[in-house]
């Protein structure tokens, strides 16, 4: 069995404001070293908040109110800001959604990557060599390194982001919707690149996406989130072929699959909950087809069912 690289235990995040929003509640899962774990859910389910909390990059109003984030046994929640800064880029780094907005438009691609490297080691010659290697690794020609982001296509920008994330040899990469705005052919190129880098560099990747197809193609396990809680966490085969949470089941039936032409998609009635106005009990209860009285009163804990975990009262009766 591979070592556990990342273990999240009971993580809760609130956004303070006029009304407190419970953006994450009691999120627990673990990520084995060398695996690709997918984090999937609809808008507002807390997937981006989770990623930002892991990196301690939450916006001003966000607070981690409970829980631990153990990275190689070290609790990131308790680290000082200075220590955390040491870890970012070098141990864990992030590829943001929308590479156009994440890259600095007035700096060349080379300068932006060099900036990351020089924080670690001030030797400029070494840094320059490293930039060349990194760009080659992600498939950007050396002749393009002195160009600006606007001269790059969407796919190339995403490659530049990946090169930057890899600059300091991190162990864990968090990729937040890395292919969302890209065309499907470019998406396939980027996913192929990530999977190749994973095996070449022994990376562990958390891949955040709303696309169940991407999860099925690329991941070893998946964390399904709903309204700020973990709905289900299991191996990829279990998630797609024997899911236990009604939300996972419903999501699969609503998701288009081109290998099943002209079959009916089944929508989930209602809308996801507002995080500052949560229903009592299970957050999925108002939309759940298998709801019963207990669901509207108490929120279910995350329970193990052998092949995985799900937070659903139905599992208690088994």
């Amino acid at each position, binding site marked *: 069995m591979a070592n556990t690289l990342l273990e999240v235990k009971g993580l809760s995040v609130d956004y303070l404001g006029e009304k407190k929003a419970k953006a994450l509640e009691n999120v627990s899962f673990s990520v084995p070293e060398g695996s690709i774990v997918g984090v999937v859910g609809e808008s507002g389910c807390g997937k981006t908040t989770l990623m930002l909390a892991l990196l301690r990059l939450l916006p001003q109003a966000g607070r981690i109110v409970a829980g631990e984030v153990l990275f190689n046994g070290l609790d990131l929640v308790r680290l000082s800001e200075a220590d955390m800064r040491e870890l970012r880029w070098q141990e864990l780094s992030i590829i943001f959604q929308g590479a156009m907005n994440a890259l600095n438009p007035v700096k060349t691609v080379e300068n932006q990557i060099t900036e990351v490297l020089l924080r670690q080691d001030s030797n400029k010659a070494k840094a320059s060599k490293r930039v060349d290697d990194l760009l080659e690794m992600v498939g950007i020609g050396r002749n393009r390194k002195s160009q600006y982001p606007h001269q790059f296509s969407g796919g190339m920008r995403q490659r530049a982001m990946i090169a930057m994330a890899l600059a300091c040899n991190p162990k864990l990469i968090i990729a937040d919707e890395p292919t969302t705005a890209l065309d499907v052919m470019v998406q396939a190129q980027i996913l192929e690149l990530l999977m190749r880098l994973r095996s070449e560099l022994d990376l562990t990747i958390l891949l955040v996406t709303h696309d*169940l197809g991407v999860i099925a193609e690329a991941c070893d396990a998946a964390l399904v989130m709903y309204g700020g809680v973990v709905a289900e966490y299991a191996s990829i085969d279990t998630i797609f*072929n024997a899911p236990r949470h009604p939300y996972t089941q419903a999501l699969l039936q609503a*998701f288009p699959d*081109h290998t099943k032409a002209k079959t009916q*998609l089944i929508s989930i009635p209602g809308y996801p909950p507002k995080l500052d106005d949560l229903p009592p009990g299970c957050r999925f209860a108002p939309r759940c087809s298998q709801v019963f009285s207990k669901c509207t009163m108490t929120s279910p804990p995350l329970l193990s069912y052998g092949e995985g975990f799900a937070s659903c009262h139905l599992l208690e009766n088994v």
Partner: protein
Amino acid sequence: MSLLEVNDLHKHFSLRSGLGQSLTVRAVDGISFDLAQGEVLALVGESGCGKSTLALTLMNLEVSTSGKVLFNAKEITGLKGRALKDLRREIQMIFQDPYESLNPLMTIEEIVAEPLKVHGLAKAKPERTQRVKKALEDAGLNPAESYLNRRPHELSGGQRQRVVIAAALVLEPSLLIADEPVSMLDVSIRAEVLGVLEHLKLERSVAMLFITHDLGTAAHFADRIAVMYLGRIVELGETKEVLENPQHPYTQALLSVIPVPNPRLRRKHIILQGDPPNPIHIPSGCRFHPRCPVAIASCSKTEVALTSVGENHQAACLLLRNS
């Protein structure tokens, strides 16, 4: 008889380069297809393949460069004034982004009633409200009454997109051109909006040109699929046939890289390198040949038209014609 018939439609834009030369962007470059009443045709392709320009040209929002479009057997290319306005009652468009296509200052009733006003229909207030309510209900907003006085910001993305649909429906058009109508919506909501469109097709025989980059969505919803590449249709056929038995190398590559939500079906991907070439410099011969994994020498010389490769199934590839 077809409701819509498109014959060799072209839409070129001219650009002036820095050196005073003028360049031509051939966004739509010889498109032909037809659409029957109550039929859904999905137009699928990557960004820049010309699918949105085609939609705008069909709506006469862009003036076509050449070619013919017949609607109910009457030519509509170049219509102006009164005749164009009358045509718009028959053909309505649904845009992609429900956050940007609704006026935030208007109530839902005003938004949905506006097309009636523009066309001078249902002038009496009670009749107008009646038609607005009917359109809202047809778009799946029940009870309609409770939406009339609300404004767009009070609605979710899925509800907004239904308002957009209602505003298109209020004129009772026979053709809807929907440009990526669900791509901004979450999965659980998407199926519901598609359900509304499906209902319109079945109950009202509304025909639809469904423009999307998502072959997955097209698979569930369309009767036929047209695959576009650089301003041309490269494959056209019944949905099941195109998806299960794709003939054009581009369609085959596209299908191989669409993620399938089934980990037991991980397949070999045919990944085309680079980005699609630019419609200013369209390659000679078959425009797909520089990226085609099976191209032969003559592909760069001969331009191929759509040829029949099966029942109601056509593709434009030299290799298919020779075999």
